[in-house]
């Protein structure tokens, strides 16, 4: 606990000393009368000042919430000694707003009394938010001395992004060996009819196509496409963001990533995550609800960290990027390092789709002058960058945030379909 004297203590002490000395010098009892009240305030203040023995802690009714949810935080403060005036302040992190309750608040505590202050908080933005610290400042009745302390324990509130529900996602070109919802191009055991072929020893009787066999006077069997799972890597660019007000390109990217992860995990695909930025994070592809929670938890810790270190895709462990995986990148394409990494991925043969979380709406065009020219050049360079990625074979779609994610995915799907036909 930090103790300090208010400026009033020094001022009253100085006034009392000067007053009494002047009274002695001039020999006037009236000056003693002018000084006596300050001397009395000083003495009373120091006599009544007792160091408080305070206990403060903060509780939250739940540790996890969705964006837009309201949670209740409770600040519990108790004191073994009387506190004449206690200022209490719970610092709220950016992304958590106060809806109801008083913060900061000044109150009085009797000896042994415990007070609970309830605060209704709005989880406005996704992220792992640490509530507090809760600062307390106790003062003596005259306000000459003060004691400050803070609650060391800070509860964490993990706010998950509220994601869109996606009806259809991007289908990877290649499937994997495990069962899933994606119809494979290969032939094997499955439901989707693929072709017919002559019977071979070992073929099951149920696969015999009797109509074709009767026509050809020999046994022919049906072939089908098996349903397989796919590997999808969600690539979040956290090198840079464009922010205006409470919204940023990273917010959009994180929400979209959560929605995509949810959709792919529901399809029983293996989903991995790469957060490529100042802090590099990755999650090895996995499947199931546990993997979904892992991804969302990892996303909550995503933040923009300034870094000048040149990172290449080589720094990512090989098993994080399985061969023939679909890489869905969400990037504002603001940093050359992430663009370089995406081009590198494409050059290595990965099936790449890029959702350009456009920073353009976050930077309004200046009305006129050189700034307007610079803005136009910047947007043209962005177009050129997207074109460069498209020439490299990556499907790119610009997302300005005002359209649903599903619409952007459809744009990417149509590009991929068109690109496939063109190649044939």
């Amino acid at each position: 606990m930090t103790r300090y004297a208010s400026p009033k203590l020094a001022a009253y002490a100085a006034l009392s000393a000067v007053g009494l000395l002047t009274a002695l010098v001039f020999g006037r009892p009236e000056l003693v009368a002018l000084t006596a009240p300050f001397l009395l305030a000083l003495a009373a203040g120091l006599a009544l000042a007792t160091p408080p023995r305070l206990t403060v802690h903060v509780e939250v009714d739940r540790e996890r919430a969705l964006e837009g949810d309201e949670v209740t935080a409770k600040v519990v403060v108790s004191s073994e000694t009387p506190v004449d005036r206690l200022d209490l302040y719970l610092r709220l992190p950016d992304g958590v707003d106060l809806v109801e309750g008083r913060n900061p608040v000044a109150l009085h505590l009797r000896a042994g009394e415990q007070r609970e202050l309830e605060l209704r908080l709005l989880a406005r933005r996704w992220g792992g938010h640490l509530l507090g610290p809760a600062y307390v400042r106790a003062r003596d009745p005259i306000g000459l001395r003060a004691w400050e302390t803070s609650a060391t324990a800070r509860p964490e509130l993990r706010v998950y992004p509220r994601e869109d529900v996606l009806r259809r996602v991007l289908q990877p070109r290649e499937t994997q060996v495990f069962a899933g919802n994606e119809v494979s191009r290969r032939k094997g055991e499955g439901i989707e009819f693929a072709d017919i072929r002559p019977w071979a020893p070992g073929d099951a009787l149920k696969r015999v196509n009797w109509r074709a066999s009767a026509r050809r006077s020999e046994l022919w069997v049906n072939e089908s496409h098996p349903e397989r799972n796919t590997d999808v890597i969600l690539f979040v660019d956290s090198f840079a963001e464009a922010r205006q007000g409470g919204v940023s390109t990273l917010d959009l990217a994180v929400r979209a990533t959560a929605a995509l992860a949810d959709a792919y995990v529901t399809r029983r695909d293996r989903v991995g995550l790469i957060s490529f930025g100042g802090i590099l994070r990755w999650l090895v592809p996995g499947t199931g609800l546990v993997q979904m929670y892992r991804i969302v938890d990892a996303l909550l810790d995503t933040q923009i960290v300034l870094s000048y270190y040149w990172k290449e895709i080589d720094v990512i462990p090989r098993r994080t990027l399985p061969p023939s995986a679909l890489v869905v990148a969400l990037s504002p394409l603001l940093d050359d390092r992430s663009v370089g990494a995406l081009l590198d991925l494409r050059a290595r043969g990965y099936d790449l789709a890029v959702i350009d979380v456009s920073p353009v709406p976050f930077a309004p065009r200046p009305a006129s002058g050189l700034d307007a020219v610079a803005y136009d050049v910047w947007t043209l360079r962005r177009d050129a960058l997207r074109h460069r990625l498209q020439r490299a074979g990556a499907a790119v779609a610009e997302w300005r945030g005002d359209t649903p994610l599903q619409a952007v995915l459809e744009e990417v799907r149509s590009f991929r379909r068109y690109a496939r036909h063109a190649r044939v």
Partner: protein
Amino acid sequence: MWTNGDHLASIGAVLGAIGLALLTLGLVLRWPMTIPWAVLLAAAGYLVGRLGSSGVDGWAALIGVLLLTSAELASWSLEHDARIHAEPALIVRRLATLVALLAAALFVNFLLLGTAGVGAPGSVLLIAVGVAAAVGAIAVVLRLARA
């Protein structure tokens, strides 16, 4: 025609006015360090005004309390932060504390000036020691009551 006493009184009034202006400036600009200087100037103005006269001025008891009142209210004003929601009971308690302090100060001052009025002239040192003793006694009582 101005006498010496009138001249001193006008200087005292000017000092008091400067003190008041300084206090106002401090409140407007939220400078807490102007409060003791304003009190000092006002007290100096009173002293200068009283230099020509002999005898003990009974109004000094009230003036001392008024100086403390202005200093306390000014401190309260500067400390006030509109963002901090103070409970009504806390404000009442603080007001009661201030009133009690001022009443005690007035009582001490009346005792002091009463003693000075009947005592031998030139016994200021004795009075000052007496005030310090009285204040100390009050402090001890308060401390014991707090414990």
